[in-house]
């Protein structure tokens, strides 16, 4: 039973030499590969990321997610059952994950040669010729439909859905990445095959590898894993999301708590102001119990178990969001305090003391950010996918340390405004 909801916040950076050494190379079919050698444990992680998240759904909401999910469900020659049987008999773990920008295929294996070789061979075959079997698809659609039903009474799902719709209107980021009951029901195996052919191509992929391999071995496994993918072409860039006029929406649900979500468009990955926004947010709502929001709303008033704010930069401008749950009769008070806190932060920024504190926490915590292969691979996959500089991690502390209070205030004044705020509440309004 954790005391705080948000524990491991974005902590970054000191001791430069501790940053992982990233090797970059390309496979023969043009896939960009980032590799970090981690010889301490006899294991290796692969993370193959396609620009094939739900932003690529078009009108078929949910097709990206379902295509990604079906990738590991067999080929013409290897049944779904055989796939899980083979991976699990080797103790290897293969997975898929789907987001707004990214569609991910991952593998974790020990480096014992026969096991790693067979694991890579199997995964390679799967991503090269997925079956998209009708019967399996139909069953997985049924499971998804049940999950959608569940979401109709899920406080988090409802809030998220309304919030993203308010921020993004008709932009491809607006809809939930698993789609809707209506759109998913209509999807056919043919649709998935078309989507797969278009987006699961070398030019649209980035591969991250972390583990006990030499650079030469990493190159060989990268080649073997991806050799079945055609080179293809990159899809066109997404449209820029346009800021929508401020909105206020309440969704009725018979819960004891009300979820409050407040925010507006933030910035995209790689935006020059991101570091100043991030550093400022650390003081506002990004540092757990040390943040202003937690002190004011949890510690002083006992209104919530957790309140936080964050920027989630994506390929295009991602959301800035403040979020909390409180007993429904206190929802109005909570909204008022959150807005006051945001307002005063935009006006006066962090205090000098807060700025020094945030810098110490962010830069002093750098080693914690990258201790473990599973953490490192997330970073390098992100660096590769969004085309961030390879020295992103090594220069992170410098960038944070170079920012003045004035820089932070300027960025916050430029990007943030109460006038643009979208407000979503979900809960029982009769409790007011």
């Amino acid at each position, binding site marked *: *039973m*954790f*005391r705080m909801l948000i*524990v*491991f*916040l974005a*902590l970054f950076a*000191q*001791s430069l030499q*501790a940053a992982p050494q990233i090797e970059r190379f390309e496979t023969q079919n043009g896939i960009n590969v980032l590799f970090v050698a*981690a010889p301490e*444990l*006899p*294991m290796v992680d692969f993370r193959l990321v396609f620009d094939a998240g739900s932003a690529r759904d078009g009108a078929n909401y949910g097709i990206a997610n379902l295509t990604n999910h079906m990738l590991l469900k067999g080929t013409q020659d290897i049944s779904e*059952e055989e796939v*899980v*049987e083979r991976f*699990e*008999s*080797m*103790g290897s*773990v293969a997975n898929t994950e789907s987001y707004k920008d990214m569609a991910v295929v991952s593998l974790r*294996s*020990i480096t014992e040669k026969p096991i790693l070789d067979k694991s890579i061979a199997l995964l390679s075959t799967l991503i090269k010729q997925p079956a998209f079997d009708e019967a399996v698809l139909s069953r997985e659609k*049924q*499971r998804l439909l*049940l999950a959608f*039903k*569940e979401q*109709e*009474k899920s*406080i988090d799902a409802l809030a998220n859905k309304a919030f993203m719709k308010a921020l993004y209107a008709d932009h491809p980021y607006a809809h939930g990445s698993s789609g809707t009951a209506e759109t998913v029901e209509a999807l056919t195996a043919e649709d998935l095959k078309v989507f797969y052919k278009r987006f699961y191509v070398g030019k649209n992929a980035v591969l991250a590898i972390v583990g006990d391999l030499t650079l030469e071995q990493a190159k060989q496994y990268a080649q073997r894993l991806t050799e079945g993918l055609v080179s293809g072409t990159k899809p066109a860039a997404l449209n820029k999301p346009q800021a929508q006029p401020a909105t206020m929406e309440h969704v009725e649900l*018979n*819960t*004891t*708590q009300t979820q409050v979500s407040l925010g507006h468009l933030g910035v995209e990955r790689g935006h020059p102001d991101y570091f100043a926004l991030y550093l400022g947010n650390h003081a506002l709502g990004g*540092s*757990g*119990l*040390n943040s202003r929001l937690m*002190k004011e709303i949890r*510690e002083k*008033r*006992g*209104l*919530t*178990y957790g309140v936080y704010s964050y920027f989630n930069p994506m390929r295009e401008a991602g959301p800035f969001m403040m979020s909390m*749950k*409180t007993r429904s009769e206190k929802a109005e008070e909570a909204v008022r305090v959150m807005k006051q806190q945001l307002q005063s932060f935009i006006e006066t920024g962090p205090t000098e003391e807060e700025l020094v*504190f945030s810098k*110490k*926490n962010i830069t*002093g*915590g750098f*080693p*914690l950010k*990258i*201790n*473990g292969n*599973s953490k490192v691979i997330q970073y390098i996959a992100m660096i590769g996918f969004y085309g961030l500089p390879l020295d992103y991690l090594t220069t992170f502390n410098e960038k944070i340390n170079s920012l003045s209070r004035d820089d932070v205030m300027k960025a916050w004044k430029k990007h943030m405004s109460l006038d643009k705020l979208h407000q979503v509440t979900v809960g029982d309004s009769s409790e007011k």
Partner: protein
Amino acid sequence: MKFLKRVGVAVSMMVSLVAQAQVHEYHLDNGMKVLVKEDHRAPVVVSQVWYKVGSSYEHNGVTGISHMLEHMMFKGTHTHKPGDFNRIIAENGGSDNAFTGRDYTAYFQTLEASRLNVSMALESDRMRNVIIVDEEFQPERQVVREERRQRTDDNPGSRLYEQFSATAFSSSPYHHPIIGWAEDINHYTVDDLKDWYRAWYTPNNATLVVVGDVEPDRVFELAKKYYGSIESGPVRGLKPQREFTQNGERRIQLHDDKAVNPYLLMGFKVPSLATVAPEQEWEVYALEVLSGVLSGGQSARLPKSLVRSDKVASSASAGYSLYDRMNTLFLLDASPSQGVTLNQLETQIWTQLNRLKQTPVAESELEKIKAQVKSSSIFEKDSIFYQAMQLGRLETVGVGWQKADEYIEKVNAVTPEQIQAVAQKYFNKRTLTVGELLPEEAR
């Protein structure tokens, strides 16, 4: 994974061992135990202090008080103001938190390795010097009320699990929820908390676990410096409170207008490593492997048969807490597919259980589990936090951290006949509890 999300019981073959750890054990004169494990992959250290106290140490009327006290441990001491703890750790680039379970309360900090002393200075201070005052307690009680609303009151699956546990366990304190009944949370007093603090927070009731880029003897020196001068205290005797023998099926239903889909929970009374008789120890490892046979991965029997082949469930899993302090439950949970009743689903689960009773599992199924155990033992070393968790937990439930080293060997020794034997012995309707979540239209 629905099971983990809904019920919050972290159990599976994939997460239950530390292989061949080189652990250094030290003892302070005041009775505090210190366990240190080196991991030099990164310049980071995790430090955890585990107390032998949790919800299974509580009696009626003050359920959840261990958890409430955990919150109050951040509210200042004679030398530190409320909020100082988090601030000082954060200024040093660290993160910190705490967690309460049935059998333990633990506090942890993760820091750049050279700053271990910062964590020890603060953590040792609050072992005896916390000040609990009403003005800090009242808002924090509200925070815990919110935590309970969020975790349980607004979550039908959690509420079913809470009521299911209260049904399965009558005389055992596993009866009540870790966070406590809402009514009890509303009625703690400052004196209740002070009493609980004095009773359990002593060095002789605690274990310090340090894993990371450290030198063990140096850690022991630091531990002596910071914890060594704390006086040991009398630890309150713990009544056994063993569960009486259940002799008949128990069944509850929760009609819930917040639920959308039905949901089934089943639990059989079983021993844990801490409670099993030494000569029967093989039984608990057989149960552990059995849970792997049923749900140790996508190719395991429950997802394979119920979800993919027969399509009666949208999810199904099994779980067993090998390392619980008291006798526990072998759990099964499942969500039916559209149009399938809970009754039909239960019948299908029984088909799987009866199959285990009637026919020994195939060698190939065991081989698969052994392969997973082998790779997991490597994968889990990727996290120093996880390694520390394992040591702290085993030590705190009373089986000793050394049991972690035996895990692979014991699991590998399990035979198909032993699995069949424990299935026959424990999958018995007389010790079964069933919980059904039944969605209902809002009135």
